[in-house]
């Protein structure tokens, strides 16, 4: 017996040169042979490229930014649900995850499932708590200092060797070589993401990123590690390759066991020249490259959609090592009426067919 089709709402349609993960998540969902449902895109800007991908999203709705308050966000979600009832929501942007965590009970009452960590866990994996996370999971982490005042940077002499990294609370990392660069980077990060800012020692080596899903009980639903093969000038992966290393898998399992993380995440680590793995950060959502998991045969976005719908998913182990992603920029041709619809009414419907359950 096949399960009923799901209508799945996905955020993060900003598939720019620093892409949000939504388009990758949607492509993975659609790639699954059992997918027969409908995709509802939730966007924040009328020029988010994923809005106009008519082969990916059936319906799109503009959302207020979470910074406009829980009430406005919640009201809009409820309104979207009356227009196109959806079964599951997969948020994909760091800044909106706390809002979706807050709304989880309310969404459940509306019959909308999600698969997210608790707020406590979300906070634990923040960059500011990385060292503590490393301790409880017994994972090496680079020396990290939380900076709330630029004068703190002057106190780092002798404690953190240059060059090190200044990181924003949510996104962004700037390598700094002296205190002047550090102060400048601090102000840039505060202007963009607010306080705190994190100063983190550099680890020389190869970066490895893992897209993974935790079952919320200490187990790992699945994980696909990837090594970037090509970077953009913003340091974003433009090409990457699926790898397999028992040590990386073991570290990932240790993370899930220690935290009981629930939902998708991206584990960023560095293998130092001496061969040690260091945890750099945990991103609390799918990475933009998550379509590789589907391409390599371990469809993690599909697994999260099933878990969010309350369905069982057995742990997954196999994927095709050596499968690559190579990103491409394409120009979408968009009828003015599509732009008009999203800009003036806040919604766009590419498809009137399909099961909107």
């Amino acid at each position, binding site marked *: 017996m096949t399960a009923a089709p799901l209508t799945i709402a996905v955020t993060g349609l900003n598939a720019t040169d620093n892409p949000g993960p939504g388009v990758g998540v949607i492509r993975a969902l659609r790639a699954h042979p059992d997918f027969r449902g409908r995709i509802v895109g939730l966007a924040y800007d009328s020029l988010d490229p994923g809005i106009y991908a008519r082969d990916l999203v059936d319906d799109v709705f503009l959302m207020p930014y979470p910074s406009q308050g829980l009430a406005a966000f919640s009201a809009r979600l409820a309104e979207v649900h009356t227009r196109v009832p959806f079964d599951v929501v997969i948020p994909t942007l760091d800044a909106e995850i706390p809002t979706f965590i807050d709304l989880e009970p309310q969404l459940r009452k509306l019959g909308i499932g999600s698969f997210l960590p608790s707020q406590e866990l979300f906070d634990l994996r923040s960059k500011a708590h990385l060292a503590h996370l490393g301790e409880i999971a017994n994972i090496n982490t680079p020396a990290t200092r939380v900076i709330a005042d630029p004068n703190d940077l002057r106190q780092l002499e002798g404690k953190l060797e240059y060059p090190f990294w200044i990181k924003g609370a949510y996104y962004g990392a700037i390598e700094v070589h002296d205190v002047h660069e550090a102060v400048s980077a601090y102000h840039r990060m505060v202007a963009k993401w607010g306080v705190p800012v994190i100063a983190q020692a550099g680890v020389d080596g190869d970066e490895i990123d893992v897209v993974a899903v935790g079952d919320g009980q200490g187990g790992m639903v699945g994980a696909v590690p990837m090594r970037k*093969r090509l970077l953009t000038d913003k340091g974003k992966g433009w090409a990457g390759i699926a*790898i397999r290393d028992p040590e990386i898998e073991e570290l990932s399992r240790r993370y899930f066991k220690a935290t009981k993380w629930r939902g998708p995440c991206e584990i960023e680590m560095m293998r130092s020249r001496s061969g040690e793995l260091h945890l750099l950060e945990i991103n609390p959502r799918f990475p933009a490259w998550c379509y590789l998991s589907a391409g390599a045969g371990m469809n993690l976005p599909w697994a999260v959609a099933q878990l969010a719908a309350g369905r069982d998913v057995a742990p997954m182990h196999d994927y095709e090592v050596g499968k690559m992603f190579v990103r491409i920029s394409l120009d979408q041709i968009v009828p003015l009426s599509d732009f008009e619809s999203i800009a003036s009414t806040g919604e766009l419907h590419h498809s009137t067919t399909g099961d909107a359950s």
Partner: protein
Amino acid sequence: MTIPQKLRDLAISETGFLFDPYTGSTFSANEPGLTVLEGLREGLSVADIAARLREAFDVPAAADVERDVGEFVHLLRRSGLVPEEFTA
């Protein structure tokens, strides 16, 4: 000789394209290089591999093939495909 796990797991195609599944790194090797790699994976000694090279390729009599094999192994060490302590 113990054959390192990484060497066992190295994906080698007939074209000489090599893929290290642990790191995602790729390399290319020519025919003599492939012969050396195959020999190492079979656990042959440097002398045995050199003999196989002399048999398979038109090698000048004065060539120091053992030294060439040693340099290739050094290259494998530098590329992280065999451990630092590995010797054939």
